[in-house]
């Protein structure tokens, strides 16, 4: 297991401008946006998808990767991660978090603004992008604070933040509680057409709760967080989204009733999208039994009935995307009494394996649908490059090994933190290679089929052309920063 870590660290990705060709041969390409599920070759050139077809011939100097037995998909996108930098670099940094993303098959992550200081200024947005470019791992898109300091009262300078590269706004970690403030933010956000992401929680109903209110909280004598704490905010916000016509996005939706409310609003034509985490699809409140702080998160793990409803809603498309809510915490902080431990668990390095094992192999969702919820859908919702393998598209690609059996070993995580309830769990399927901007950014094995040469980065020009073709689609932070550096 340490070998994998070495592999990732031994070859620090170089993002210096250079050109190269990568030919992925013999894999099963699953591209939900294009409706492709077939055994095809994929040629990546100058950081873009150059060609998809049968038996493509390798050109001179091309690096050929044998993908037979593997599945080639558009790079996965995680729309909800906490990278902790600035402020809690002991838990995670943009460097370590974006590397952990690669190991989970994610080519892009969206960083939440509840850092210290909060991402509520152009400078803060710029810092995240600069750090991401310096790290050179997965693309990192900042999400900015909806209110100054995320205090829920004064609107932040949303226009400035979007101009600096923020792809959405939220006060995640806490809700925008005031209905009047929420209404104005939704209205104002329409200028820029960025999603307003809400952490749905009525703090008065939560009232210091630490786990789902129900059978287990009653037995353990722990203060409960009722499902209603989330649902009343979802219901209120859906009415406000309808009133304002803004794009409203529900973060980490966790209850059956919330999913029903979203489904009903979608039928009425409200511009709402919603995400669900892998842990809310896989674990129930039972996981907290025994006061396991690794099962403490907010929203809490819900009842079995909720989990069942979330699985159905994901398959039906009511829940648009899977996002991990990757929330690193230092070991000491979780090694506490349940009441005092912080909320949150890691997600990046276990997400695909869990969902493939628990949902795809269990017949609850097809592979193409799962990929759709993890790549094209988040790209669409947040207006990002990637999400498909069309010619000219950015060459962000994940190669999956669906047969790979593995055991979750927190000690081997590339994240700086270890807080997961999934340690020791046997999974089937994981990312085998992660390609960013047409370069192999991470791979699972030191496979002889992959030449061990330094990575080349996509040229800034390539990225610009890809961006230009897609109109208003935003390009990743790292690409922007590279352009800046080149100048």
């Amino acid at each position, binding site marked *: 297991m340490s070998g994998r870590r070495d592999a990732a660290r031994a070859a620090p990705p170089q993002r210096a401008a250079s050109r190269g060709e990568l030919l992925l041969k013999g894999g099963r390409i699953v591209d939900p946006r294009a409706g492709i599920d077939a055994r095809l070759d994929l040629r990546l050139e100058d950081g873009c998808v150059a060609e998809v077809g049968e038996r493509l011939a390798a050109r001179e100097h091309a690096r050929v990767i044998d993908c037979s037995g593997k599945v080639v998909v558009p790079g996965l996108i995680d729309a909800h991660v906490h990278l902790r930098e600035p402020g809690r670099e002991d838990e995670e940094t943009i460097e370590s978090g974006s590397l952990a993303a690669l190991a989970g098959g994610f080519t892009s992550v969206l960083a939440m603004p509840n850092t210290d200081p909060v991402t509520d200024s152009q400078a803060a947005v710029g810092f995240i992008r600069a750090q991401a470019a310096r790290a050179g791992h997965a693309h990192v898109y900042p999400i900015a604070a909806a209110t100054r300091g995320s205090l829920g009262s004064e609107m932040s300078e949303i226009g400035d933040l979007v101009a600096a590269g923020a792809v959405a706004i939220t006060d995640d970690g806490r809700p925008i509680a005031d209905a009047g403030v929420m209404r104005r933010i939704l209205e104002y956000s329409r200028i820029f057409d960025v999603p307003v992401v809400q952490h749905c929680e009525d703090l008065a109903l939560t009232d210091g709760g630490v786990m789902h*209110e*129900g*059978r287990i*909280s*009653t*037995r*353990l*004598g*722990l*203060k*409960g967080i*009722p499902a209603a704490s989330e649902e009343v905010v979802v219901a209120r916000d859906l009415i406000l989204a309808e009133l304002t016509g803004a794009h409203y996005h529900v973060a980490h939706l966790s209850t059956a009733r919330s999913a029903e409310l979203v489904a009903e609003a979608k039928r009425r034509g409200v511009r709402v999208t919603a995400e669900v985490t892998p842990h809310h699809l896989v674990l129930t409140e039972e996981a907290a039994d*025994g*006061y396991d702080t690794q099962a403490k998160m907010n929203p809490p793990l819900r009842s079995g009935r909720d989990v069942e409803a979330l699985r159905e809603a994901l398959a039906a498309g009511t829940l648009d995307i899977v996002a991990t809510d990757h929330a690193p915490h230092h070991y*000491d902080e979780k*090694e*506490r*009494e*349940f*009441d*005092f431990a912080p909320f949150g668990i890691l997600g990046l390095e276990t997400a695909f394996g869990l969902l493939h094992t628990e949902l795809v192999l269990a017949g609850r969702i097809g592979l193409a649908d799962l990929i759709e919820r993890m790549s094209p859908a988040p790209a669409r919702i947040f207006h990002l490059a990637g999400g498909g393998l069309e010619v000219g598209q950015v060459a962000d690609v994940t190669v999956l090994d669906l047969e790979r059996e593995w055991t979750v070993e927190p000690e081997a995580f590339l994240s700086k933190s270890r807080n997961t309830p999934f340690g020791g769990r046997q999974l089937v399927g994981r990312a085998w290679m992660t390609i960013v901007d047409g370069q192999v950014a991470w791979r699972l094995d030191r496979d002889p089929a992959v030449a061990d040469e330094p990575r080349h980065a996509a040229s800034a020009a390539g990225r610009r052309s890809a961006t230009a073709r897609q109109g208003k689609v935003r390009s990743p932070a790292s690409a922007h920063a590279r352009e800046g550096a080149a100048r």
Partner: protein
Amino acid sequence: MRFAHKDLLGLEDLTRGEITAVLDTSEPFKEISERRIKKVPVLRGKTIVNLFYEPSTRTRVSFEFAEKRLSADTVNISTTMSSIAKGETLVDTARNLEAMRIDMVVIRHGASGAPRFLAERIPSNVINAGDGSHEHPTQGLLDLLTIRDFLGRIEGVRVVLVGDILHSRVARSNIWGLLKLGAEVGVCGPPSLIPPEIEGLGVRVYRHVEDAIAEADVLNVLRIQLERQKANLFPSLREYNRIFGISNARLSRAPRDILILHPGPMNRGVEIDSDVADGEHAVILDQVTNGVAVRMAVLYLLAGFDVTRAREAKEGLEFEPEAARGSAKGSGTPRPSRQPGPAGGAAEARAGERGRDTAAKGGDRGEVGSGAELEEART
């Protein structure tokens, strides 16, 4: 037969047989507290830390008496929630104590699950003296012992807990203990103080205290705290008393005599009126007396002593758990390491008989078995 647990964290974790074993073990210990010299050398050389993160008088003193009457060396550590928030974590505190080579920790903590957290991290025996809203197992045991003392049985007895069930660790320990011993359990209080899905534990919810009084053999009246009023869970202590307070006027309509328990400290005139608290059916001070005996029993069992040998301990014999284990494995005859005192002869004879019984049954070593087996061991 020996207790199969390292720790006592809650009655939910114990079997019917194990709970009965603790109650039975408590019986001979009751008498020690009635002596002029209230001391037996059972836990001589054992070091016990009473680690209290919440203020407590009754429980802490009761544990301390139990420890001292068994000749253990005790240390009391009291701290407030604010000082842990600032300083050392629970696990660091525990490891430091452990480094001084202690044998047992009695812990009271405001966070549910804290004793379990500790028990999973240190080799010492851990006894839960109340954790958050979770359990208070020795209180549950002393309530069971008191009910058994006065009604002669627990099976089939109808017990209703009245008051703040939501925040009550006493309620949860009572519910588990009573249900396991075959009692019928009800809870009664303002709906804002009844936890969700409590029926799932196997208890009945009474909306009106009059209904509870009409059906109960025992009322365990729980303390109502002013801070719950401040949290808007009910409007006033006055109104609480009017709707749920236990008064003689209410009790007089009961079809039968009702035993009144209260874990203390009482708010007279709130959850219980003085005429009831001081009345003939209240056994509140008997609970306190039993508390010491129950805690002596728990300490004794967790120290690794044999359930069936509590009477010998009472006679002043000295035991070494390791030696006792050896004997149980061998002939089945307990071997006191020292010659018995004047009263010891008979006790030794009785112990010998019990030992033979045990050996004849195939030598049940270690785990506490079924209730029936315990009954046999007890007689």
